[in-house]
């Protein structure tokens, strides 16, 4: 019993290692890609902002006691002005909002990657009953309207970001599981997997040592795109007031701006600021995801690039290349050399 448990733990550890290992090499590849680098830099800055928010923010964003400075326009004192209703410093709120967005996005994205990978690999590799059950579940999840269910569930269990993450994960794994499953169905027939099967490797061993590495690239790419999608969804839920009512998030800032009269009084910065926050975080994760896709299917990119390459082609150089192929050049070269020898 104990031995079995130990064995299981070891396999899980191995799985985790294989789950995270490709990330390092991918960050390297991203960094070497100009567009990927932009994404990485923005994500890095966002993470730093989230961690050091108290140091960066000039004011306490939760401070609603500044009665004197309500509804200020942007100035050096308040870079993005203050809110009309409570006099909170908008710039500080923007900085703190990074935390909710990143935490919800990353935690959900990684959880979905775990769940989606497990379900997709089980469905694809084990097949049979597991496959049927998982794919039926996917079909059911697909028809349940997500936003209304989220609203009902927050009504049932109270509003919190934990709840939101839970629901996102509950609904988010289905798409990923499908993608992974179809790739696993292909990998399953690969020679190295067949060889391992013939050699008598256990199913778990094969799934973790052979299948998981095969899908890891797709997994990472999808995780980046999922994070981006989740950040948008989180902003929407917070906008509807379904997030933690005490936390500061960009979605909630937008809702406050709308209800607090930003539109009416022309305080556009109150709307634009959280919008830029959302845009930057979603954009950077999407960039990373798309660049990964490009790295995964280089052909797609090449074929679009070709027009740019054609524009910059040097005709003289092409002439030279063509000429070098001529039979007369080969012959001439030959004749000359023969002469030299003689």
């Amino acid at each position, binding site marked *: 019993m104990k031995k079995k448990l130990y064995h299981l733990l070891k396999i899980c550890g191995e799985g985790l290692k294989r789950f995270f290992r490709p990330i390092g090499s991918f960050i390297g590849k991203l960094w070497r890609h100009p567009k990927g680098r932009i994404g990485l830099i923005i994500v890095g800055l966002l993470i730093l902002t989230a961690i050091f928010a108290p140091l960066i923010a000039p004011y306490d964003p939760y401070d609603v006691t500044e009665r004197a400075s309500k509804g200020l326009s942007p100035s050096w004192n308040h870079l993005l002005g203050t809110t009309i209703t409570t006099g909170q410093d908008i710039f500080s709120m923007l900085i703190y909002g990074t935390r909710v967005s990143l935490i919800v996005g990353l935690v959900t994205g990684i959880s979905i990657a775990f769940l989606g990978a497990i379900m997709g690999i089980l469905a694809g590799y084990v097949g049979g009953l597991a496959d049927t059950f998982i794919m039926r579940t996917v079909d*059911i999840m697909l028809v349940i309207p997500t936003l*209304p269910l989220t*609203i*009902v569930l927050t*009504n049932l*269990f109270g509003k919190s970001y934990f709840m939101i993450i839970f629901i996102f994960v509950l609904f988010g794994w289905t798409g990923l599981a499908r993608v992974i499953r179809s790739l696993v169905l292909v990998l399953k027939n690969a020679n190295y997997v067949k060889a391992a099967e013939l050699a008598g490797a256990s199913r778990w061993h094969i799934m973790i040592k052979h299948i998981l590495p095969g899908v890891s690239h797709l997994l990472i790419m999808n995780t980046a795109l999922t994070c981006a999608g989740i950040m948008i969804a989180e902003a929407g839920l917070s906008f509807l007031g379904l997030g933690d009512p005490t936390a500061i998030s960009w979605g909630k800032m937008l809702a406050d701006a709308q209800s607090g009269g930003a539109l009416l009084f022309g305080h556009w910065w109150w709307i634009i600021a959280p919008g830029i926050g*959302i845009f930057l975080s*979603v954009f950077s994760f999407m960039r990373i995801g798309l660049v990964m896709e490009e790295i995964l299917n280089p052909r797609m990119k090449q074929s679009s690039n070709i027009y740019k390459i054609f524009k910059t082609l040097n005709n003289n150089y092409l002439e030279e290349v063509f000429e070098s192929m001529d039979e007369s050049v080969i012959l001439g070269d030959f004749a000359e050399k023969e002469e030299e020898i003689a």
Partner: protein
Amino acid sequence: MQKSYLIKRILYAIFIFFVVMVLNFFIPRIGVDDPAERYYPPQGNMTDVEYDIIKQVTREQYGFDVSNLQQFLNYAKGLFQGDLGTSFRPGNPKVSDLIAERLPWTLVLSVTNLLISLFIGLMIGTIAAWRRGRWQDTLLLNMSTISTALPAFFLALILSFYFGFELELFPAYTNPNMVSGFDWSWEAVKVVMYNAALPIISMSIGGIIGYGQGTRNAVIAVTNEDFILTARAKGLSRNQVIFKHTLRNAMLPIVTSLGMSISGLIGGAVIIEQIFNWNGMGTLFLEANNTNDYPLMMGIMLFMSAFAIVANLVTELCYSLLDPRVTVGEKR
């Protein structure tokens, strides 16, 4: 299309509906012994005795005084007679009546949005594929990275701010008279169009670009297929190749995403409706949530699910008409 395939898909859709129905029945019962506690949560100033009485009344009113199984059977029976339940609202209107009242207004927004997105998207997508790698294509690509990173409700706020409050071109909030005074006259239709402009624009910007990018990728993927080369080797002209061979095949992935858009027609505009105060299904649901009106919420959810199931089924059947390979299960 084979008959057996048709029957199989329909049976499967019924199965899915059944599961969704069971889930729907149990969701309000999660975490409480007595569903009456969900329907009427205890208020602070209520004594236990008073609350017991209220619960008793609620139980009787909503038929919670029988076993769970019996409740479920009653629920299912009601559904098959078209009874989605009764709302808490004053006058206890039928959920189905409330939905019938609000549904058209949501469809005005979402169907118009879908049509606009689809047609303009198809057009610019085809152009981008045609002018692949040229500025049209690059423009679409850049627009699509920007527009997917901007939530539609943020666009809605900006539009409502600029065109509604600053320029006062369009109403930033829907005129409540639009619904009550609607009588199918040209004037009334014009009022609806005027009020729907901003919500529809804010929804369709993302839609157009999404469909555009999707079409572009689909067309390019088909252009690289071998059978396009065959068609050209037969001597077909460029237009014949495009219209007879490329587009037909490029339609396939577009039909799939169209199906997804259709299944989201009812529930996809909650936030936009809320921003513009539009009296549709989304606002109905939010109102229900604010008043803890579980029968209404669950009724709407079930309706949306049923709609999505039917939409998926229809999409699948259309797909199998377009792609003869589906019925034999060779490709999906």
